[in-house]
């Protein structure tokens, strides 16, 4: 209230210059002009006097003991750490995923896709198709075993087939010898 009265007492067109004068921020000519005005204007002089009286205690820095600053630093660091932990809990959880699983899974997925497209020749059904459960994996994976079961029907009649083959061979041999004999005679 008193402060407002002081402002009212100062000349309106000098108010700004008086504040700059107080802080020593106006140049020489300005400063001389203000000093000249102050020597004649009681209201403006009172204004500057009050500024001198009121402002220094307001601007004065409160000196805190060293212990306060030590505590302040510790508390600030602790609070920042707590906030960081709260914000990044999922990052800690996902760190292994970010580290090596992403490239590994990416590579595997890419390889499976490429192999599927290459070997399946674009026909994904043949890639997805798994061997029947009726035949164990160890037989399917072993080409020798697979061939055995593929030709099992034939193996059961192998003797007969060989006999037929032998008979045919004999017939062929007989025919050939007759032809040779005929040619030789001719």
């Amino acid at each position, binding site marked *: 209230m008193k402060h407002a009265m002081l402002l009212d007492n100062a000349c309106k067109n000098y108010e700004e210059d008086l504040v700059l004068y107080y802080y020593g921020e106006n140049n020489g000519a300005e400063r001389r002009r203000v000093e000249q005005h102050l020597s004649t204007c009681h209201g403006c002089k009172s204004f500057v006097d009050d500024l001198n009286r009121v402002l220094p205690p307001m601007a004065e820095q409160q000196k805190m003991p060293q212990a306060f600053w030590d505590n302040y630093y510790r508390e600030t660091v602790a609070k920042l750490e707590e906030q960081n932990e709260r914000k990044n809990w999922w990052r800690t959880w996902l760190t292994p995923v970010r580290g090596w699983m992403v490239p590994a899974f990416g590579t595997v997925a890419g390889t499976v896709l490429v192999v599927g497209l290459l070997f399946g020749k674009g026909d994904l059904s043949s890639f997805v198709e798994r061997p029947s459960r009726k035949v164990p994996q160890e037989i399917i994976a072993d080409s020798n075993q697979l061939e055995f079961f*593929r030709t099992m029907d034939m*193996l*059961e009649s*192998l003797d007969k087939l060989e006999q037929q*083959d032998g008979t045919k061979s004999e017939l062929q041999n007989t025919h050939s010898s007759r032809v040779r004999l005929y040619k030789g005679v001719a």
Partner: protein
Amino acid sequence: MKTRIALALVFGLFLPLLAEQAIGADDNWRNLSPREKDRVQRNYQRWKGLPPQDKEHLREEWNRYQRLPREQQDRLKQRYNDQRRDRRED
């Protein structure tokens, strides 16, 4: 961090190889026609029910067949397929 990078490299290099090997093991099977697959399944089921001496006999026949010259193997196979086709047509 270095360990993780090393693990990533190991997985990145070896997992594709393992995956390829695992997929490649089924290639023999996948290359068979549906009819051949059916035949393998039927023969396997039949094989499981055979008495041991028949199994042994079939194994011996298989080993004997394996020792035959390639030409004779093909001839026998061809003969067998012809006879089977003839039987089916009859």
